[in-house]
């Protein structure tokens, strides 16, 4: 059953990614098709997660592939909040292809199947859920950062089509990026606290990485507030941070 739900989600996410590329030529049917692709794909993936949750004895997303599956769902959920409004549709160009590829990876790694799950209990679920939600927030903030850099480049190049293919204003993107990062930091904090009892006095490399990540995000927010870190520099920092997480986190958490 669960496997049958992966395909609608994948097809819909893929369709959305292609349709967003069509939206680049001008607002119209492409954008609407893309939005419906995101909605349908997200609903299919939600159904998949529900089937997995009821079919497993424990926490079904404890493996790297399972975590990736949940992560993709959270990223698309955060994106859906803005993605349905015309001005933020093009954010889907950054988000949906990645979501589709990651879901394929999750499927290939067995993260979309129903198995016994990890029986470590509620705290693991809370820890993984909040951490992944925080990371999803950081990913969408990085998407905003990418959009900022693109729009900044168009403004610098004095692109004459600037007002025909309208992206969200720079100021709005910068503010949203900061707000989403702040929300992500709160989620990461809760996730870390929920994960502490599982350590039982041990301190491993995954915990160290998580704390470093938390400190980096917190520092970026403090610098933004106190030292005026914003605009291009903040966007680059956000993208670099998420890139670093994408490389290091799988190694520290799932290498064994």
């Amino acid at each position, binding site marked *: 059953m669960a496997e049958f739900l992966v395909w609608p989600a994948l097809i819909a996410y893929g369709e959305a990614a292609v349709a967003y590329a069509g939206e680049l030529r*001008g*607002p119209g049917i492409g954008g609407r098709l893309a939005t419906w692709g995101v909605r349908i794909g997200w609903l299919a993936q939600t159904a998949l997660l529900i089937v997995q949750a009821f079919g497993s004895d424990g926490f079904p997303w404890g493996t790297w592939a399972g975590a990736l599956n949940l992560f993709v769902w959270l990223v698309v959920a955060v994106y859906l909040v803005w993605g349905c409004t015309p001005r933020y549709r093009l954010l889907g160009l950054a988000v949906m292809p990645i979501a589709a590829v990651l879901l394929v990876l999750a499927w290939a790694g067995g993260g979309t199947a129903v198995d016994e799950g990890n029986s470590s209990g509620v705290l693991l679920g809370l820890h993984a859920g909040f951490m992944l939600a925080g990371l999803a927030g950081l990913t969408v903030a990085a998407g905003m950062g990418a959009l900022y850099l693109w*729009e900044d480049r168009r*403004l*610098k190049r*004095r692109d*004459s*089509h*600037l*007002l*025909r293919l*309208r992206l*969200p*204003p*720079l*100021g*709005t993107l910068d*503010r949203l990026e900061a707000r989403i990062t702040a929300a992500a930091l709160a989620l990461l904090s809760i996730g870390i606290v929920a994960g502490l009892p599982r350590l039982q006095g041990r301190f491993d490399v995954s915990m160290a990485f998580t704390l470093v990540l938390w400190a980096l995000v917190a520092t970026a927010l403090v610098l933004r507030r106190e*030292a*005026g*870190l*914003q*605009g*291009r*520099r903040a966007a680059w920092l956000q993208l670099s941070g998420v890139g670093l997480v994408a490389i290091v986190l799988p190694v520290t958490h799932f290498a064994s």
Partner: protein
Amino acid sequence: MIDLRIELVGVSHHQAPVELRELVAVDVVGASSLARGLADGCEAVVLSTCNRTEVYLAAGDGGDGLARRATDELLRRAGGDAGGLERALYRLSDESAALHLFRVAAGLDSLVPGEGEILGQVREAFEAGTTGPHLDRLFRMALHAGRRARVETAIGESPASVPAAAAALAQQVFGDLDGHAALLVGAGRMSELTARNLLSRGARVVAVANRTAAHGEELARSLGARAVGLDGVVQELAAVDVVVASTSAPGFVLDAVTAGPTIKGRRGRPLLVVDLAVPRDVDPALAQLDGCFVYDIDDLEAVVESSLAGRRVEATRAERIVAEEADRFREWQASLAVVPAIASLRARAEEIRRRELEKAHARLERLSEGDRQAIEAMTAQIVNKILHTPTVRMKEAAVTADGVVYAEVMRHLFGLGEDVGLTEESAGGEDST
């Protein structure tokens, strides 16, 4: 039967130069008074803007001579230039007149496609007109078409002038302009127009720098800003978000050497510099600095050209919307031909039902109040159900050329409008009770 006739007589920028248009132009009060004067036994609305003066007339009885009346009035107002005006006048009737009004309301007949003011002007004309059921419906549907064109397409979104493009760019950088500060360097006409565009979008002008102090102070006062000298411009750069430069200085007023350090001190906080001057006031090297966006007059004109091209593309989509709405109006107009027949049929059926109930009164008296009400409701329901399909079919047929024939057939079959003896009908009906 209603024989609705709509006539339009007008003059617009397409055929008439301003010298002719101004002869017949009227303000809202004048439009209202002209409409009242023309609405002798009919409905009249006068739409007068800087690009057009149009008289819309409608009558439900065929309205012979409506167009002649409006033409004569416009020619009378033209006085000695009546001949020139007559050659520029256009006359449209019924569906063509309706479609024209819908295109006007959508901004498709404007000098700049999709310009925003026309919809408000159509509304004003409608409110000032002497309207009845026909022009009321026509103008309401035209306003609806105009709103749809603007909501469902991007025809009115892009700027159509350099000052508007500058303000739109500022919004593209900062989003909401509320609380954002602008500095004017130069107090010329273009500076002022750009400043007014920025003000209308929520920005505030904090300072005006000009070589001639008196002129700068005058503009500053009118914009609620303070006047500064040209030597104070660099200092102002630290605090403002938008700079509009438009002086006649022969060289750069803002160059990278003097302004660069101040802009670097903003630490990437965006600064939009709009240079409207020729020769340029702003060193293009400033555009290399982080967060600083410099647009000269050529850049802005390219943006406007692209926007107008976009409007033309959107105009084809808006034309489809207008055509849909014009079709709906045509359907409504056609349905008028069968409405009286439908109303007569329903009235006849209701009268028969009521009489039959009255005749059965003696037998119904034995029933309780609740039962009597149930019978009352049931008979009404039967009449409605029997008449539902013919009513729908008549309205459908009205859209086609057969509508009038159907109406006539129904009148003939049911004897509508004739003095058919209801007693006789009732006698026949008694068999079934």
